[in-house]
């Protein structure tokens, strides 16, 4: 894998051109690796710069951990960096672990969260669908009721109209000329008619009761 990854400049620099040469002897059909000609990497590795940490004149950024790591990465052991410095210190590790605990929960926790959310969503959906189904079941009855209601109102309106016309006709008959239904006279007349109707109804009721009473003792007598 290594030979095919590293470009020629790195190969030249780190002196591993020998690896590629084996492949050059293979026939062209088998030769699978293509070569590039990249621009040279100007790295001064022979005389590395090692900053003097005790000197005040050296810039602060050359005294940092990060710069030490970079020096080690570039020059290796020749940089004079203690390799143990490359890894985070215990304090830094604590920080990193804390951060990870907060921002990167483990796989199982995340899966649990996802499952919970999914459950909640489906529960909500089922609730809603239940309500919808229940309401849909009620629908035929509600439609029928509404239709009936409409019919009734229509009927009432018709009756009202008929009644009004009748009253108007009565009024014109009585007073001899067209009367405004809103006038006092008309209302008086209406009240009178109502009274008469009431009396009639009462008489009818009394008659009915007498008839029933008359009938039942008669029936009782006949049965006996």
């Amino acid at each position, binding site marked *: *894998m290594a030979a*095919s*990854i*590293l*470009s020629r400049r*790195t190969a030249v620099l*780190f002196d591993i051109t020998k690896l590629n040469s084996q492949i050059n002897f293979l026939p062209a059909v088998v*030769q*699978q*690796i*293509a070569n*590039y000609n990249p621009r040279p990497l100007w790295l001064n*590795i022979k005389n590395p710069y090692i900053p003097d940490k005790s000197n005040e004149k050296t810039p602060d950024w050359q005294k940092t951990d990060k710069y*030490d*790591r*970079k*020096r*080690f*990465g*570039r*020059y*290796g*052991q*020749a940089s004079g*960096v203690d*390799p143990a410095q*490359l*890894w*985070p210190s*215990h304090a830094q*590790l604590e920080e*990193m*672990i804390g951060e990870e605990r907060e921002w*990167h929960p*483990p*796989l199982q926790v*995340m*899966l649990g*969260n*996802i499952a919970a959310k999914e459950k909640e969503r489906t529960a909500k959906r089922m609730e809603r669908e239940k309500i919808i189904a229940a309401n849909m079941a009620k629908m035929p009855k509600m439609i029928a009721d509404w239709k009936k209601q409409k019919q009734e109102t229509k009927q009432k309106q018709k009756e009202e109209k008929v009644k009004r016309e009748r009253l108007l006709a009565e009024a014109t008959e009585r007073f001899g000329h067209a009367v405004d239904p809103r006038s006092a006279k008309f209302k008086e007349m209406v009240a009178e008619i109502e009274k008469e109707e009431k009396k009639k109804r009462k008489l009818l009721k009394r008659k009915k009761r007498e008839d029933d009473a008359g009938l039942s003792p008669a029936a009782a007598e006949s049965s006996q």
Partner: protein
Amino acid sequence: MSANKITGGKTIDIVKNLPRINLANLRPNPGATKNETHRGHGMHGGNKSGRGHKGERQRGNRPRLGFEGGQTPFYLVIPKYGYNANHSRRPQYPPFSLRKLQYLIDLGRIDTTQPIDLTQLVNSRGVAIQPLKRDYGIQLVDEGADIFCAKVNLEVQVASEKAIAAIERNGGVITTSFYDPRSLQVLIKPVPFFISGQPIPKRMLPGEDLLPYYTDANHRGYLADQDQVQAARLALAKKYGYSLPDITKDELFDMLAQRKDPRQIFFGLSPGWVVNMEDKKILKPTDEKVLQYYGS
């Protein structure tokens, strides 16, 4: 030419005998077109040279496009909403076609005897990834699925179903895996990372948004159950109507079976190791806590 002049003939006969209409026979009605006023032929284009009279227009000092003289311009008044909302925070996956992959393999820029990773693709200059521009990897697109004929162990970040089928039909293996932005930067440019002297970081798990994608066997997610993946391979073969070749009997089976650990960035390198290019050495930590952190 009018019918009146021809005696005993019909208009249709005349029309039939006329030559075919082409641009040479056509002309606009007189008065239909009017000549454009061109700028003068004097020095600098004559008089005001089409620049207007005084002001910013003539002096070429007009403000930038969209400026409305200080009033908050239209393109700033309208808030970002809906389709374009949070566009700069969305993960992007530049497409990578099977056709391009075949092209790279044919030219020998990619070695099919080794697992093909994003590192290999970038080294062969097949893709250009910009992690800082919210690129989270590549998506395998099925353009060229019918001409694809290479047996590869491929790892991408997103793959379409047809592309997965095309790879598996040729006896290859495809995995979709997640790389968080830092790991991605390390993955695409390993040598500059090694030169920086940092220990290899461990790959983070995908967030709750992407986790369902990578735990799904139909997407060949790296966190999915291997048995489910095998079942999905068979199902896909049935769906697309090809016979799934048995890779266990393949000579390159060990290579094809190679897969990375969810926390691993490079094959053969664990998180926590320091690779030194100058000394050609790999340094491994010995401290317990450090090992515990990188091993978790």
